[in-house]
């Protein structure tokens, strides 16, 4: 599946140098158009699919919320990244109730031909992965604050007891507490559930980031 890329600034899914960028073709030769983060979304009815890279926002942010008219050939996507970690092999493809099956198939082909794993999810905040892991990281940070165990023992328990490659706290710290704050704040704004509310340590780190942006007297 041939695709063209529209970009304007940095993409979290496909940073500079990513092989996916190099395989793009000119727009007039493409069946699919991929809008990377920051690029202005423009509908293109004649394409097999139009893909919009998402951050913490829903696809509806770009297309508008219209229950009667959602769908067509537009899909959102995000390649999962744990904060500043390199992008994973997972692409979360976001469809809406009326999205055509052909558009989903075209979008899937674009990413699978690039060697990426694709899952399809609805247009909900956090998609699949952040919706599931962020409350767990919040809980781990809270339990750490409450003295349940040391960070080392909590991470070790998850590695040994569940076979995880890393523990929740080492993972969220590696990805960045400020990043965790940004993701959970967006989730909390959408769902209002306590489990999504940013953990204290993430709030503090975000506050420190704001403080650092203020020039000293």
């Amino acid at each position, binding site marked *: 599946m041939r695709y063209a890329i529209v970009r304007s600034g940095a993409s979290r899914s496909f940073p500079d140098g990513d092989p996916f960028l190099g395989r793009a073709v000119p727009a007039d030769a493409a069946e699919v158009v991929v809008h990377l983060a920051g690029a202005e979304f423009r509908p293109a009815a004649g394409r097999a699919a139009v893909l919009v890279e998402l951050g913490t926002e829903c696809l509806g942010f770009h297309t508008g919320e219209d229950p009667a008219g959602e769908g067509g050939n537009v899909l959102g996507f995000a390649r*999962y990244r*744990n904060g500043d970690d390199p992008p*994973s*092999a*997972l692409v*979360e493809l976001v469809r809406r109730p009326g999205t055509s099956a052909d558009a989903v198939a075209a979008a899937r082909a674009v990413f699978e031909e690039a060697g990426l*794993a694709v*899952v*399809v*999810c*609805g247009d*909900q905040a956090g*998609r*699949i*992965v952040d*919706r*599931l*892991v962020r*409350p*767990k990281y919040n*809980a*781990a940070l809270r*339990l750490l604050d*409450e*003295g*349940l*165990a*040391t960070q080392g*023992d*909590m991470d*070790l*328990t*998850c590695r*040994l*007891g*569940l*076979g*995880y*490659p*890393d523990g*929740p706290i080492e993972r969220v710290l590696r990805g960045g507490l400020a990043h965790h704050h940004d993701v959970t704040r967006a989730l909390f704004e959408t769902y209002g*559930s*306590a*489990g999504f509310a940013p953990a204290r340590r993430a709030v503090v780190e975000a506050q420190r980031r704001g403080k650092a942006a203020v020039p000293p007297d």
Partner: protein
Amino acid sequence: MSSIRTVAVCGAGGTMGTGIAIVAARAGFRTISYDVAEAPLDRAARQTAGFLGKSVERGKMTAQERDHILGAMERTTDLEGLAEADLVIEAVFEDLAVKKALMARLDGVCSGSAIFGSNTSTLSITEIAAGSKRPDRVVGMHFCLPAQLMKLIEMSPGLLTSDETFRAAWAWTEACGQIPVRTQDKPGFILNALLVPFNNDAIRAVEAGVADAADVDRAIKAALGYKMGPLELIDLIGLDTQVRLCEAFYPVTLDPRAATPPLLRRMVAAGLLGRKSGRGFFTYDGNAMFGA
């Protein structure tokens, strides 16, 4: 130097108890397996012989070592038979009243220096210890399933557990080649405190139409490198077991994430219990798995 020489396991006819007895005997401790009837002990003996036999086949131990371990294992259906135990680890049914009653009975059988370990995964060590007249000798020792293969043990002192008891139990786990971690006496300790709500969140994601079960699991495995997705894991442990875990945690923590998801309750009512019933979030035919 640990003064523990003889270890007893209560509920040794169960899967967890069988594994704990293997851990103790394999480390060279005289090990007494206790259960209320001969049948579960017979089953445990067969499983133990099978496990150790495979260990020999795989070159992990010699036949002589296997025979030595089996020779160190005794069994009884009489609680009085645990009188010489320096450490008693209970792995009986996960019910506070049952465990407290066992503690009270052990008080009358074991010496004053004996340590009582509880393998509970959901109950409070302090509350279990309240069944004993010597709560300072009671300590949480949560093994992971299967105990004979998993190194981790969550070690939790109750409010009244003495430092001496905790240190002795900790040293014993290390003598067995296990890896202990220290946690407070809180619901689910570390492992289940994080896992049970996470698994519930995965169920709720399916229920909310975020994605189907196969894509939820695929996403978690691809993004995080987990060997098993949360819904496949729930199918393995049993959907009814997940309900029981929720019912143990939620009334204590009042954490909405620990509450039983409605979809889970409906699936259990429909007999969709996971692998053991052939269908849960996925469908199973023997060992093969098919997408939901």
